[in-house]
């Protein structure tokens, strides 16, 4: 039954490091929101959110140590979200003047 334990060992210390990074990034995003970057503000906020999600996905959700098929599936799912956003805004730009 070793196949059921494909996971590497996930130590307590590693998780605490990831958590510290996540909390730091939260502090950063809240602080940065006070500074006006103009149009870049939303980009910075989203970039930090993407980094945080990446950490949760790879470390907490063990995506890093899963089989390749898991990574492909997640990639395809996220790709479709991106396609939806791209198509929506392409369509939208033709309707609004």
């Amino acid at each position: 039954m070793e196949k059921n334990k494909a996971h590497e060992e996930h130590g307590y210390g590693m998780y605490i490091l990831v958590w510290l990074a996540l909390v730091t990034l939260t502090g950063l995003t809240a602080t940065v929101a006070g500074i006006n970057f103009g149009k870049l503000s939303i980009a910075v906020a989203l970039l930090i959110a993407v980094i945080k999600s990446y950490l949760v996905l790879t470390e907490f959700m063990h995506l890093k140590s899963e089989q390749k098929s898991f990574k492909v599936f997640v990639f395809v799912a996220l790709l479709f979200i991106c396609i939806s956003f791209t198509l929506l805004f392409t369509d939208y730009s033709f309707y609004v003047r």
Partner: protein
Amino acid sequence: MSTQAVHVEAHEHRDDIRSRMGMWLFLFSELLLFGGLFLMYSVYRFMHQHDFSIASKEMNTFFGTMNTVILLTSSLTMALSITAIKRGSRKLSIFFQLVTILFGITFMVNKFIEWSAEFRKGNFPGSAILLNKPPGQILYFGLYYSMVGLHGIHVLVGMGLIAFMTRLTIKGIINKDDYVKLETAGLYWHLVDIIWIFLFPLFYLIT
């Protein structure tokens, strides 16, 4: 002897990788559910940038930041509970699971305080005060209540799920050799965390 035979057979039919894959597939459907709402949000925000910015000033950034930290910490304790059960420390695992539920409760209590404050200000769907505001601000609050509300329901479901896993851990059904149920419950809890990671800057931190 016969129970042992059944036990062995149950083990033979176990496939933890497929169990986790099943949960991931469900999570993709959740991604579509929230993805649609995020799509709607992005277009309305693009249409009413100024109104969204003004409406978000009503939000309590302190509560929002605290809730983010609370949810991130609950994700940590959830991950720790899985490591604990893998290493055979059942009591420690149960402790971490209970702490996770406690963080979930704290998150919901904060939400209750926040929403009560908004309701007192008259910022609830259909109120005369809100309806007199510009359309963009009405849309902002509509999206705020539906998206954060749906997320809140997910937190409640996640807490129920973890509580059930705690019961199974106490009973010994989840143990050192068979902890995939706890892992999949953890996956769900982490997804709820990821959704909040995006909701927080989009509703609380509009400059």
